[in-house]
């Protein structure tokens, strides 16, 4: 096992007639947090989607602990220790918060009483009053917090967080940053449109513009 939890090499993605990513390369070392900063449409979300298997990869390599993910079916990738917080949260509105958090464990055939769930609850005591409520009835920022907790539950190796602070109040942003920084032994890849806000989390930042990494 090398020093990197995640290695992305020469990643290219094309959607319809548009090239979204061209030759994107970067690495996330074990246990560290790496940021991807760029404007709307720069390719941040597509990069994360390629890693979880939600974008059609045209060429390049994505390696998790050395293993090529492009050869792994998307629905098997979560089982490898990926935790994903999508930009638009994607909770199941009709289920409770607790059910949303247990669902990824059930889907993998585990009993829903995992240590990760407890970890998420310990890290975010703010979740306690929300657990029995329907996810669809939560406010925007409350949903973001639940989506982060869900990523923590499955993300034993790598967390992929797409704009975790968008729509989150300054007070809760500080708390979520604390939570992310306190995770032990997990590599984190975060996107953010604001380089200053990214520095709350990490100094290891790549800048992405029009589908290309232009600076690190």
């Amino acid at each position, binding site marked *: 096992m090398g020093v990197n939890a995640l290695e992305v090499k020469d990643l290219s993605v094309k959607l319809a007639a548009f090239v979204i990513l061209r030759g994107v390369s970067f690495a996330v070392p074990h246990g560290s947090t790496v940021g991807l900063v760029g404007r*709307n449409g720069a390719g941040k979300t597509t990069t994360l989607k390629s890693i979880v298997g939600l974008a059609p990869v045209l060429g390049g390599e994505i390696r998790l602990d050395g293993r090529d993910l492009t050869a792994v079916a998307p629905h098997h990738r979560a089982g490898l220790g990926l935790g994903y917080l999508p930009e638009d949260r994607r909770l199941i509105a009709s289920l409770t918060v607790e059910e949303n958090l247990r669902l990824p464990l059930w889907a993998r055939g585990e009993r829903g009483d995992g240590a990760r769930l407890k970890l998420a609850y310990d890290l975010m005591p703010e979740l306690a009053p929300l657990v029995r409520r329907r996810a669809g009835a939560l*406010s925007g*920022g409350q949903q973001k917090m639940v989506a982060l907790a869900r990523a923590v539950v499955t993300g034993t190796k790598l967390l992929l967080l797409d704009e975790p602070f968008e729509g989150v109040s300054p007070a809760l942003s500080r708390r979520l940053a604390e939570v992310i920084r306190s995770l032990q032994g997990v590599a984190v890849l975060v996107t953010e449109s*604001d380089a200053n806000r990214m520095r709350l989390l990490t100094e290891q930042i790549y800048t992405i513009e029009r589908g290309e990494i232009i600076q690190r």
Partner: protein
Amino acid sequence: MATVLETHGLTKSFGGVLAVDDVSVAIAPGEIVGIVGANGAGKTTFVNLVTGYLKPDRGRIIYLGRDITAHPPREVTGLGVARSFQIPQIYASLTVLENVLIALAAREGQSLRAWAPLSTRVREAEGLILLEPFGLTEHAARPVSELPQGGLKLLDIALASALMPRLLLLDEPTSGVSSAEKFGVMDTLVSILQARGVTVIFVEHDMDVVTNYAGRVLAFSEGKILADGAPGVVLADPAVRKAVLGWA
């Protein structure tokens, strides 16, 4: 003094959660009001009540002297109250420009089933002009489904402003819009709206945006208005700093 909007004792709860708790506020014509507050403080619920998407348990909503409490959203919109997000719907399979043409047609009262073509030269030109300040002109021909999240947000605001409202409510207009672009967007938006004398209420988590563009700030906390006044005063209030910013 005449007001654009007044709420009197506005209250809404969901089961055991008191989302908006006895809120009374009066907003004068042309004011640009920012709403800040912790997540779950009741900001969106307030917007939903004013625009008719939710019915209050108690209280009244007066718009331009007229009681609009519990009027359905379509009627509220018809009276000149627009909001970003839902009105009019964004049709994901259509292009950006087509969505604008629909909004313009709706504004002119043209039914979508009517035979008159949606796309006239004049309307297309107006549509492109409308997209311009939001940086969306170059995406005019793209299907909406291909826009990034931030682009969708901007299109939503463009569509709401196309309705030529008297009162415009924007729920987090800049969230999802990258920091490099948010100030530019707010500059253009606010100057367009101010020139037209539109009264604006916007919910916002970015305190720099609030400070720069709001003439008045309402700080919500647990369904109540904790502070109301000039941005410099409200955002310096220790109780507000604790509830919203997380430090004293």
